[in-house]
């Protein structure tokens, strides 16, 4: 995984049962970093969707592959924000195909990317520096000047 010292970091294998573990971590971290309970809940949903997409589409349901989550308070264009980074080692993911679908058609599936984009202020997918996998960087700003410690 890429170098760096995140304030909070979790490595978990791609087992759907562990999504609940990641949610618990993200919810606690988001609240500690200044989000109110409602916003923290939405952030948890976005991270959960991102991880489920990695498990389902990236790893094709394999349950023994690594996923990393890093959480850091940052400044985003001068505003206090929290950065959530999800990294994987998925091979062959076409980043151009990761997109939201129109919501006017009522059909099951395909909502995850929409949810991530709707909840987060910034969403960036890129190949990892070592070429093995994808890095998803999501930023959510703290609105209303929530208390935050340890900004970079």
């Amino acid at each position, binding site marked *: 995984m890429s170098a760096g010292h995140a304030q909070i970091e979790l490595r978990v294998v791609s*087992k*759907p*049962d562990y*999504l*609940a573990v990641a*949610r618990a971590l993200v919810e606690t971290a988001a609240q500690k970093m200044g989000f109110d309970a*409602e916003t923290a*809940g*939405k952030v948890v*949903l976005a991270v*959960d*969707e991102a991880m*489920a997409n990695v*498990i*389902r589409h990236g790893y094709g349901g394999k349950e023994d592959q690594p996923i990393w989550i890093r959480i850091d308070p940052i400044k985003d264009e001068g505003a206090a924000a929290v950065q959530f980074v999800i990294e994987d080692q998925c091979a062959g993911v076409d980043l151009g195909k990761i997109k939201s679908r129109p*919501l006017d058609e*009522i*059909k*099951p*599936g395909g*909502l*995850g990317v*929409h*949810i991530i984009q*709707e*909840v987060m202020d910034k969403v960036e997918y890129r190949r990892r520096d070592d070429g093995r996998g994808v890095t998803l960087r999501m930023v959510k700003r703290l609105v209303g000047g929530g208390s935050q410690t340890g900004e970079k």
Partner: protein
Amino acid sequence: MAKSDASFAGSQDLPDGVVATLAGEIDYSRSPGLRNKLLELVAAKKPARLVLDLSGVPYMDSSGVATLVELFQAQRRANAKLVLFGLQPKVKGIFEIARLNTVFSIAPDLEGAKKA
């Protein structure tokens, strides 16, 4: 009950249909099992009114929502109703983000769901 079915907590007949009670967090690890149980229930009972009690569901992700959309479509094809009640704040939140809060029939409680 298999772990994957754990989101399905039982059902109860109504004069014109059935109430299914869901429980716990419904995410990608649990929605496939729930989907199977609910589709089995609909196939067996063919309810004119399918009511889903979500009051015991504190969290749902898009895979859970996809299951409900599939049920919505199945009921609509059968000219039958699907009514939800007991949505907790996080579940309401995902319905709003997915713009599905105006698509589904959502009642405040069981009595409302029986009349919707």
